[in-house]
């Protein structure tokens, strides 16, 4: 796949957002950060990201799973082919399991990974890594 993917990070926890931003920026990626679903839905059409790292527990009423369904089912966001990776610390329940299998491209448990593994995840979608 040509070029570096544009990345959108949806994360409300400041520290984690900070870490992931640092890792990804230091890695050479273009990253934008939002911390709730409304912002996410606003930014997607204009930013048109290749990969969305989507937290599930988000403030403001709508969860990441709601956002996932909206992005996949509403063509106005043009996110039908966007790689969406759920990033959470929640264990999978039946609902999560179903939605991830149906709509998401990846599932990450934040506490279980080193932040640098985000690169491996991006790579698993066939993107090249930025040159040092």
């Amino acid at each position, binding site marked *: 796949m040509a070029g570096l993917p544009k990345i959108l990070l949806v994360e409300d926890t400041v520290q984690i957002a900070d870490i992931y931003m640092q890792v990804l920026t230091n890695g050479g990626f273009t990253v934008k950060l939002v911390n709730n679903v409304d912002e996410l839905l606003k930014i997607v059409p204009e930013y048109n990201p290749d990969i969305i790292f989507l937290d599930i527990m988000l403030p403001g009423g709508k969860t990441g799973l709601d956002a996932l369904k909206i992005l996949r089912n509403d063509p106005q966001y043009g996110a039908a082919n966007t790689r969406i990776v759920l990033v959470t610390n929640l264990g999978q329940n039946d609902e999560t399991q179903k939605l991830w*299998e149906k709509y998401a491209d990846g599932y990450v448990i934040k506490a279980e*990974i080193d932040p640098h593994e985000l690169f491996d995840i991006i790579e698993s979608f066939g993107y090249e890594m930025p040159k040092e």
Partner: protein
Amino acid sequence: MWSSLGIRQKVFALFSVIALLPLVVISIIWLRSTHDQLKQAAVNRQNILLSSSAQRLNDALETEINSVITHSQESSVTGLNIDQAKINLMQYANQDSDVLRITLVDNNGNEKIVINNHEFSTSLNNIKSSEEFKVVSQVSNEVSVSDVIYTNEQPRIIIAVPLLSFSKLGDQNLTSAEALARRFGSDVKGALIVDISLDNPFQSVLTSEIGGDGYTYIVDAEGQLIAHPDPELIKNNANLSSVNQVSRFLAAPASIEVPSVTLSEKNSEVLSSHYRIKRTGWAIIGQEPINSIYAPYNQVVRLAVFIIIFAGIVSTLLSLLFSRNLTRPIRSLMAGTYQVAQGNLDLQIAKESKDEIGVLAERFNTMTGNLKQMITNLKTEGTKLNVVLNSVGEGIVATDSLNHVVFANISAAVLAGQLPSDLTGKPFKQIFTLSKNNTPFQVDPNSTEITKEVVFISPNKRLHYLDIFVNKIENDPDGIKNIITLRDQTDERELEMMKLDFVSMAAHELRTPLTAIRGYLSLLKTDANSNFSNNGVQSIERAQSSTDQLAGLISNLLNVSKIERGSLNLSYSKLDWVKTVREALDGHKFSALEKQVTLLYEGPTESVPLLADEISIKEVINNLIANAIHYTPENGRIIISVREEGDKVITSIKDSGLGIPANALSRLFAKFYRVKGGMASGSGGTGLGLYISKSIVELHKGKIWVESEEGQGSTFTFSLPSYNEVQYDELVRTKDMGVNKRRGWITKNTAR
């Protein structure tokens, strides 16, 4: 028939048999012998009387005849010396009172002397034509004895003796009648004819009675009656040859008769016999009426009958008395048993005697007492049992073979929302409509295991989660077939869910700061701009290692709560098991090296495919290897082997470690279980690893077990089903080749 009789009838019958039967038998024997004796006595009596009578009569006749012969042989008579003969003959007539008339005739039939009634008769006739003279002088020259002649009701006979010359014979000594028979007619000089009255000899015969009513009579050789107690018969000149006894005599005159029963001349039944009189050929017939012979017998019969009737009456009375006495206590027993049957256990039967019936009454009373005690005990037991059954929290329902409710305790009734008594008799499944995993659930009496999480919606619409256990009862007398225990786990389940929610929430809350710490440590370590000393770098690495451990711990807690909820979902994929195991081994190489423990792989080198959840099954093998390393001392050896056995893939992790105490083996896989004692030291485990491993293996439809001997090391083994295509299609939902799985993340590189 006997059994249908009452005791009274039986006693009566028994008494009758005992009292009357011997009496009847003895009576019959006695009567028979009496009968025989009477007859024998009559026979003897008759024999003796007849023989003596006959002897007497015979002797009398013989005497008279001999007397006539003697007188005929006197020389004056023989020589017809009339004067001298007159004197002699008158003397004879005077001497013998029975002589009625003496006639001396010459051989021409002229009477020479006639003595009549002791007087000489002067009218002398010629009696040449008379019967006596003809017989004596012409026919036989023998003594002639006439038939009996009755004159003026007086019997007499006429004896005629020929007068013979003895010189010719030269035998003076012949005086007997036999000798006379040999004389010749030409020597007859005349005849002496004597009329003899038979009144005396006949009377002596006729007057002798046989027994009371028996008598004798005399017939001549033709059966003509010549003497009879009844003078009328004589007058009528009766011939009795047609009378049985007489005709028997006529048929065989010489025989001596044994008295026998026959009909008399008067047509009555008599015991009769005859006795022949030698001299004249007559017979004395003796007879005794049967009635008179057996008169004493009839008396005896009457006596016996009287005794029997008397004994019958007495025995009847006795039996009535006895049976009354016998049945009265029995009747009171009967009344008592009826009362007891009606439930009156306080009744005591009066003891009336000390015999068996008295003992029976006493024992009956004892029995009633015991029965009462037992019933009281039973009631107490029943009450106790009820109290116990009703105080337990579990619903307990007893059902019969049709699975209808026989008994339900209060807890069961409360659960069903009905009264316990309303449940009785109803089908169990009608009261408890159960389901499990959204499908109807039927209680299986043959199941020996507790069925958990059975859902029951009570009439008030409340959802209950029940644990159900069925106890099968064999051969219960009340027909109880199953005891169904319903343990309402709803509250426990809610509590458990709250606990799991809490664990899961707490874990999640822990994860967020952990993620931050981890992230910053990673940034710190990789920041090219920071200048850490070697020591600093090492510290960072240790902090990272600890956060890894903490992450693993939290992950385990979450897994446990998922397992408990039943929401640990496996995401199957096709693995190369050999590769997976060897990678896991490689992963532990460093820590093994650190501990100087040898890690060995034994098994196939080519790939062995397997369907499994990659992440969780790796957790199992990693956990087991980590445990093995942990518990194996330095220079120890750990062998990981893989082999295929039938439709299973078996993996063993064998260490040369401390081993596990036998008492710990059974609980080893339990949640939070940790072996106490020496093993605990140095173990940093949470006690969740083996529990999670077991759960994961079992979710894979496999089995896990351990063999261990203290001091000899342990072998943990688990089996997993071999790969098969059908299951691959069934289980593997994400079949894309672009799936990437690591600990902590998974992606699908599929076209969108």
